[in-house]
């Protein structure tokens, strides 16, 4: 019989404690196998609770943050009425969402219609499980981290296409097809940039990638390879923005053209799920950018021992989320300051500019490794 064990870092802690606790059990119940299985289950529950808390908890915070950032960019105040500076506005919105009627329009494919939000939500959850939040905080430390992230990200497109096609609405269909075309196109440059990161770090495991950026700020991949790292970071930023369907690449739901895009016909909680998936994707993409370019959970050491001692005292997970929120802030500022390109400009930009530049970047990275080792 195959007994699942805990191999990843949080597991060590659990594996240490479960045998100590099982010593209190009756003699005949104690066994090595039981301990391993219990440790695995305890570990799984901890992971699930933690990732759910991060994912679902971050969405209301991000929605509030987005409204505030948007408002201040446009010289408004944003939500101010509910709670201090409108802090509980999003909670009120969630409650409102819960009591909305859920129904599929006539002619909709009911099964597909309700299946779409499920599929859309799978991808960001799986990606969140692969991100190392700290030295000992990673849910699933698989060796094929980066290819898995690319594969799972492709899943989201399916949900969007399903949602658009099943609602029997022409706006939805158009939005879904545009969104599908855009997402699969930008997925290529997304994969290429991650290839660049893999080439520099020499590993597809996200933990190893983070660990190979240990040291000072100069060791982060954005600065480690002169110029190329920064270009890679910018390209990653562009392609992940398009991957998430965020403005300025929100062709899929260009309000002025397609009303709501692929989720025009959705209402109530299924609609909220699309929204949730979008915001979790924002967190996971920022986390990925942090892991791949900004040194993950490493403190921004500057090489002066007196300062670095204080910086490294702060837990890695705090640095990680500080960087993630910085990235999210960047994504939000980009969203509210840039104008939306036309759909043909968008596709031209990917296939005729981003992809060739990515291939050149890969070549330049290879040349750097050959020359500088």
């Amino acid at each position, binding site marked *: 019989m195959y007994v699942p064990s805990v191999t990843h870092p949080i597991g060590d802690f659990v594996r240490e404690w479960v045998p100590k606790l099982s010593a209190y059990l009756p003699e005949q119940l104690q066994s090595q196998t039981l301990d391993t299985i219990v440790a695995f289950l305890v570990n799984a529950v901890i992971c699930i609770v933690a990732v759910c808390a991060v994912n679902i908890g971050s969405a209301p915070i991000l929605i509030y943050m987005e409204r505030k950032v948007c408002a201040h960019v446009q010289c408004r105040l944003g939500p101010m009425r509910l709670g201090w500076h409108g802090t509980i506005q999003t909670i009120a919105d969630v409650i409102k969402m819960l*009591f909305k009627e859920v129904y599929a329009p*006539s002619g909709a494919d009911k099964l597909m219609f309700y299946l779409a939000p499920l599929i859309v*939500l799978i991808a960001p959850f799986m990606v969140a499980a692969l991100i190392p939040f700290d030295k000992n905080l990673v849910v699933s430390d698989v060796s094929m981290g980066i290819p898995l992230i690319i594969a799972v990200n492709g899943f989201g497109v399916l949900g969007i296409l399903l949602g658009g096609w099943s609602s029997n609405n022409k706006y939805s269909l158009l939005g879904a097809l545009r969104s599908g075309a855009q997402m*699969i196109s930008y997925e290529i440059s997304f*994969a290429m940039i991650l290839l660049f990161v893999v*080439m520099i770090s020499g590993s597809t495991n996200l933990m190893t990638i983070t660990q190979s950026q240990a040291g000072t700020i100069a060791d982060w991949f954005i600065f480690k390879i002169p110029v190329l790292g920064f270009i890679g970071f910018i390209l990653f930023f562009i392609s992940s923005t398009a991957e998430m369907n965020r403005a300025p690449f929100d062709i899929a739901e260009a309000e002025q053209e397609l009303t709501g895009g692929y989720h*025009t016909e959705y209402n109530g909680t299924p609609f909220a799920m699309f929204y949730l998936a979008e915001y979790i994707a924002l967190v996971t993409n920022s986390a990925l950018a942090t892991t791949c370019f900004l040194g993950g959970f490493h403190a921004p050491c500057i090489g002066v021992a007196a300062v670095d001692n204080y910086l490294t005292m702060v837990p890695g997970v705090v640095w990680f989320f500080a960087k993630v929120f910085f990235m999210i802030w960047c994504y939000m500022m980009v969203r509210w300051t840039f104008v939306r390109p036309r759909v043909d400009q968008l596709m031209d930009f990917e296939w005729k500019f981003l992809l060739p530049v990515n291939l050149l970047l890969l070549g330049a990275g290879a040349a750097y490794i050959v020359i500088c080792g």
Partner: protein
Amino acid sequence: MSEYIILSIFLFLGAFIAAAATVVGLLLGYRTRNTKNKMAPYECGMQTIGNARIQFKVGYYLFALLFLVFDIEALFLFPVLANFREIMSGNTPLSPVVVIVDLVIFIAILVSGLAYAWKKGILKWE
């Protein structure tokens, strides 16, 4: 292996949360009678003509084909590039020169494919 088992739990977790939310919405949601106008597909107040499942432009399909080629290319490049530095340092039985030449040939074939598609006008969005 157990890493992947935990990961597969997350595969179902996302779906489970969305399903739970939909069920909660169905239970708590306010209900009104399903009139014809309410159930009609939204089209800015117009009467909808015909079904939305219409035949669609082939251009999208061609982009999907190109995507497939390049995504698989990226997948094939992963094992080589993950070990690129090691191969270049000469610690492996593989010769660095041969690997570089292979990579150049591999990418050149794909780039020529992209160039062909570009020239044929597939990348032009109408």
